[in-house]
């Protein structure tokens, strides 16, 4: 009887210790704990060096038909907002070979907010519109490179709305409806051979 109580107390103690540990550590590592599920997180580098995480970013394939995800190192952000900003900045930068960027070169990130219901509002500079090539497929790829980069790497972000120069917009270049936050869409990431719909 006493032995059974002792085991019970020990189990309770372990559970309490675990809860304390999670509560104490989690707020300090809000971002790293999330992408770990989607992609293997890299260990933080030695103290003093810039910490980085591995994230999946999206680029135009060599044949131009798809928007595959590519594993890349992205600067570590202290909060989910900060991490989201780092991911978008990396997505806006040049594409690694042999891919092409889906976003016009020189597009700037003005601001990024995260709403209470998991919507990220990504405020981009006007270059994304003025330098955009137009065309439905190019515009779909631009849009979903940004939407997927955030929603895939940061599961806390469920939907993404792109703003331009601080304002809500109809479209980037006349096609994709940007008036509402968009959710992750992975159908463009690879070309299915069969009935591709």
């Amino acid at each position, binding site marked *: 009887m006493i032995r059974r109580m002792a085991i019970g107390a020990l189990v309770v103690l372990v559970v309490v210790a675990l809860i304390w540990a999670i509560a104490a550590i989690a707020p300090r590592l809000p971002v790293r704990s999330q992408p770990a599920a989607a992609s293997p997180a890299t260990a933080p580098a030695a103290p003093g060096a810039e910490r980085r995480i591995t994230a999946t970013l999206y680029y135009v394939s060599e044949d131009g038909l798809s928007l595959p995800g590519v594993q890349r190192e992205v600067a570590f952000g202290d909060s989910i907002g900060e991490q989201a900003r780092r991911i978008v900045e990396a997505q806006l930068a040049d594409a690694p070979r042999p891919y092409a960027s889906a976003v016009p070169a020189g597009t700037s990130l003005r601001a990024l907010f995260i709403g209470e219901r998991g919507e990220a509002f990504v405020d981009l500079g006007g270059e994304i519109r003025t330098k955009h090539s137009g065309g*439905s497929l190019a515009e779909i790829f631009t849009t979903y490179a940004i939407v997927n980069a955030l929603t895939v790497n940061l599961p806390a972000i469920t939907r993404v709305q792109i703003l331009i120069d601080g304002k809500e917009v109809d479209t980037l*270049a*006349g096609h994709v409806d940007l008036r509402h936050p968009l959710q992750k869409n992975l159908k463009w990431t690879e070309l299915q051979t069969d009935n591709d719909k």
Partner: protein
Amino acid sequence: MAGQEMFALDDLARLFNVTVREDAAAGGLTVTAGTQTIVLSAGQSLASVSGRLVSLPAPPVREGRTWYVPVDFVPRALALAVGGKVELRKPSRLILVGDIRVPRIVGRIEPLGNLARLTVDVSPATPHTVTQEGTRLTVRFEADGLDAALPATTSPDFIANVRPGDGPATIAIDLGPRFSSFRTVDTPGDRGTSRLVIDVIAQTTEPQPSPSTPTPTPTPTAPQVPETPPLIDLAPAGTLRAIVIDAGHGGAEEGAKGPGGALEKQVTLSVARRLKAALESRLGLRVILTRDGDTTIGLDERAAVANNNKADLFVSLHANASPRAAISGAQVFYLSLDEYGDAAERAAHTESESLPVFGGGSRDIELILWDMAQARYIKESAALAQSVEASLRQRIPMNARAIQQAPFRVLVGANMPAVLVEMGFITNPGQEKQLQSDEFQNQIVQSLVESITRFRDAHSGSHQAGGR
């Protein structure tokens, strides 16, 4: 003149820009057209055209200072000398010069009990459409003019009048008080002619052969013209009547740009105009363009044009772009609803509501969430996209992603089946040239006319708010 119709030679000289010299000593005339010479002799029913003799029904005649030649001088002698096509139509006193299309139209009207039949023989066979505009039928021929002998009416209750229409190649049929519906059929005739039969039908207490039952399709290539040809009902309830063609971009919004400088907005407008002409003349549809010039038009406005005109279909034309110059091929898009969440679901299942009306009673009113109007037509839009893709595939290169769904702003508000066609990649140098060429544009137009016809045939009689 002596049983012969004659032309004054001076008038012909002016018309055909030839010179006439009189050789008084030889009693003859010389007509010079460029390097060709026609020699006529007084009293002889012969003319020599650069050494080749042709016969005339009568010799040239002098009256005062003017020489006259038989009318047949024009097709038999003058035509040879001036080159090109010169056609004389004696009954209608017409001389046709050059390659213009002026078909001969001869009509007659027969009363046939409960209908009046207007039979029109067209020579040579010329494509045409028959459309109803209020109490008038308009027959439009693809021609530069008409040489028409129109009949006086014998059944004024059905056909009040047959007269030349507003255009140079149209005939207007004013309908009488008993008119209820009409049907037409075309049959090929002898030697390149064709016969168009228009039956103007009165309202009867007995039902007509039900328009909802599929009319057996006549075989237009039947070698013999049957006495009573099977008739197609061209205007049953529920078929396509109006279509909106949206030339993508325009004005300040140039759209995508090719490496050689071609602009998407120019390509889309060019194809839209061709498509309008083809749909109007071949299917008799009312076609509205969202823009017919280089103007900036909002995306909302484009869908509004379609909705306000109660169009049955909406087709938006575009040219694609990619950072990869090699990618090519056409894509057909219809709306994807996933991105719109619950709003789409609600819009797709909007039911009509019964509202009280002035004077008692009630009326069913459909409440449509305008912003999401397309949600109710996704199935039909998918069918239209498949039809368009299948026709395009016959004629132009298709992309590996040929049919796609996307949350496109211009489609979501359209209250009818709607597709967006990316005709090719303007960023691909080869496709840039194609997109600007007449031949490629005509192939697209042909594909779209064919697919819209097929869509119409598959959906006739059942075209209603679909997707439910």
